[in-house]
């Protein structure tokens, strides 16, 4: 159904930041009525391409053409005016304005006295939602909307601006399965109305479900553009990383040792209730469930950053007092949190400071830090994890997502944990890094570390875990052995109904 002429052409664009060439001579075409996937490892240059289309960065060389005419997208307003809309992973709505006001921002319908015609504004928003087939109240404030609903509001905003090219930058990273389906239904209807979609994701099952064509990038260069009917997932992965990967989920069999983490009757009203489980040394236990089922809250409560009402946590026989991450760390617990930008890292501080922050006391001599030991330690651990960076004194915020995650892992592995809790350890990172993280977790378990992993990615849960604990609405509802755990059994426990996937 693709039109003969491309709607948007990217022609040999290049962009450098200082000495680093982020994108080199990349060309591809987007057709109206077609969904086009852009894939590549972190740092491959996808974000830079998105930012060029969004008018955030201007290409150093090359051009972007819409309908055969060259465009100078110097600002986001230019891109908007040209009909290009970008939906980011974390939408940026005005939280205290209503949904309708957010959609109409900058183009509010005016009444007789040049005042805003609120009724018309709400009506237009309602029409857009009706067209998208979603039910969001246009009058409610944007604050409190789920990320999925915020993205739908962004899409409605794009529609109201008559966007013909819609770029979605990892929109599904924080969505549940049902939300992804709803987003895809909307995306398909946009496509069928003749818009050109560009879809960026690390999840191949989503790409094959939604897209017709895929462009693969590596190291800032264009590798290939293929019809998805002509390429297998294995081929895509090979092209992305430029080499063959080992198994994606290489959990080795390890004989489980003594109980390292013992949780009994953990409750915090109304988030989770009566959660009890053990994790043994050498074991990887996955905590599965839908987003919002209370998994992250449980692990944060174990670590002590969140409070708890009742229940006990024991680490290698030592009882932890509630609300003290410091004591949990001293007992040998490490938590790699869910949200790396807000919780895992101090984005404006250096790589070095980030890696050594939890250990600054033990690295000090007579209470003083001269910086040498911190530098040595940061260097050692970032190298162990093969982190790519310019200088250790660079802000950690300048790294790509995968390398940021490695810094978080380095930071916690340096504490030599007995119990490692990882919350969504591979969210938003590329396949290459993902495999490295999985191998790392497996080898840690082999060395006798007890690993508790929260994950929303079923393949990761099934591939990595010796045991799967499933949470639903704040309660632990199932414990499945490696042999019992399948997509169906986990989803059944997580949703409380027969899986429809």
């Amino acid at each position, binding site marked *: 159904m693709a039109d003969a002429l491309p709607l948007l052409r990217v022609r040999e664009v290049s962009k450098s930041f200082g000495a680093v060439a982020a994108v080199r001579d990349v060309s591809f075409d987007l057709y109206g009525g077609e969904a086009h996937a852009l894939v590549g490892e972190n740092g491959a240059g996808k974000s830079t391409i998105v930012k060029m289309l969004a008018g955030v960065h201007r290409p150093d060389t090359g051009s972007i053409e819409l309908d055969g005419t060259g465009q100078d997208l110097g600002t986001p307003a230019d891109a908007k005016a040209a009909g290009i809309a970008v939906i980011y992973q974390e939408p940026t709505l005005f939280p205290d304005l209503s949904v309708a006001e957010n959609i109409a921002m900058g183009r509010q319908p005016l009444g007789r006295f040049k005042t805003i015609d609120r009724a018309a504004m709400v009506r237009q928003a309602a029409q857009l939602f009706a067209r998208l087939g979603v039910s969001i109240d246009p009058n409610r404030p944007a604050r409190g909307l789920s990320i999925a609903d915020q993205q739908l509001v962004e899409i409605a905003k794009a529609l109201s601006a008559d966007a013909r090219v819609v770029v979605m930058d990892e929109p599904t990273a924080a969505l549940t399965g049902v939300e992804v389906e709803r987003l895809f239904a909307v995306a398909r209807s946009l496509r069928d109305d003749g818009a050109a979609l560009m879809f960026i994701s690390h999840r191949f099952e989503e790409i094959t479900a939604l897209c017709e064509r895929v462009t693969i990038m590596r190291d800032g260069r264009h590798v290939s553009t293929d019809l998805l009917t002509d390429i297998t997932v294995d081929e895509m992965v090979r092209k992305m990383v430029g080499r063959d990967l080992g198994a994606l989920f290489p959990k080795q069999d390890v004989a489980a040792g003594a109980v390292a983490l013992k949780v009994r009757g953990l409750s915090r009203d109304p988030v989770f209730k009566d959660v009890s489980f053990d994790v043994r040394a050498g074991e990887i236990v996955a905590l599965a469930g839908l987003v919002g089922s209370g998994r992250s809250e449980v692990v944060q409560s174990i670590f002590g950053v969140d409070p708890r009402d009742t229940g006990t946590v024991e680490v290698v026989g030592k009882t932890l007092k509630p609300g003290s991450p410091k004591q949990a760390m001293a007992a040998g617990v490490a938590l790699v949190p869910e949200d790396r930008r807000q*919780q895992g890292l*101090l984005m*404006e501080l250096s790589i070095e400071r980030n890696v050594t922050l939890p250990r600054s006391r033990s690295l000090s001599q007579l209470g003083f830090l001269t910086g040498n030991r911190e530098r040595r330690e940061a260097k050692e651990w970032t190298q162990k994890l093969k982190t790519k960076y310019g200088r250790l004194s660079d802000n950690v*915020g300048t790294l790509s997502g995968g390398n940021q995650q490695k810094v978080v892992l380095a930071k916690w592995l340096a504490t030599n944990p007995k119990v490692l809790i990882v919350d969504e350890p591979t969210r938003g990172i590329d396949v290459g890094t993902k495999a490295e993280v999985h191998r790392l977790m497996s080898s840690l378990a082999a060395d006798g570390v007890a690993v508790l992993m929260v994950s929303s990615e079923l393949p990761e849960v099934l591939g990595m875990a010796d045991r799967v604990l499933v949470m639903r609405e704040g309660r632990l509802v199932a414990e499945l052995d490696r042999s019992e755990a399948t997509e169906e059994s986990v989803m059944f426990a997580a949703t409380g109904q027969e899986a429809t996937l």
Partner: protein
Amino acid sequence: MSATESAVVSRFANWNAAIIAITVIVLIVAAASVDSFGTSQNFGFLVLDLLPIALVALPMTLVIVTGEIDLSVASTLGLSSAVMGYLWNANQPIETIIPLCLLLGAVLGAVNGFFVTVLGLPSLAVTIGTLALYRGLAFVVLGDSAVADFPTVYTDWVTGSIGGTPIPNVLIIIVVLAIVFGVILHATPIGRAVFAVGASEQAARFAGVRPGRVKFWLYVASGLISGLAGVLWTLRYSSARADNGAGLELAVVAAVLLGGVSIFGGKGALPGVIAGVVLLGSLQNALRLSDVSNEALNVVTGVLLIASVLGPNLVNRLRRT
């Protein structure tokens, strides 16, 4: 994004060096163009004038790096001075009064810390409140009167200099405390925690830092040093008054920001702050020597405060084009 972020980093690094260079230039120009600026006698006055700003700026730097602020410092200084006068009038020995005034400062700081960390109120509002409250209490304690006649052993030490040298005694206090606070901020786990809290309180918590505890003790330190500044102020002029140090918080915040500390927290360095204090103090001193009125000196503070924000921005914009 990465390009702008590293520009921000180098901007702060450069501003720190720039402010030190600007300070040196101002000192040289002042010495050359203002007749009595470079004399050893004036050096003593300059240090004494700088004393309260320099002392209070030290804990203020740490407070601002955590992303908070303490505007009650000048009122704490005033209340410390008023209580000192009241107790001296009540014939208490000076050896008891001075520790009591320091303790009072620490308690006043702890009150700020309690409101900010335990109750979680915004420090800007809390310390504007205690700015008025503590100054009001100072007037309750001492009214409009002034208490004088403090023991000359103490007043002479504060205004005197080391042996036969032109180096004022109080410079020892400044240097020692500057080293203490500089080391705490830049070479201890506490300092690492201070920067972490300022960069992201949540991420700091996830790394085992207790932001509330860090901030609470910084407010206590701020109160303690302000109490000390009140004692030294009183001894310098041998006059305890409720309005001592009024408006000083403005100069302190100006000096800290001028020194390159980010008002949003997470960034800053103590050497720059020292340069900011010296720049502010010596400019005021030089202008005073040139017969500029005290009231007009506020213009200088205001202009410098704006320059402290504008300067790094302009430098950044020039570098980009």
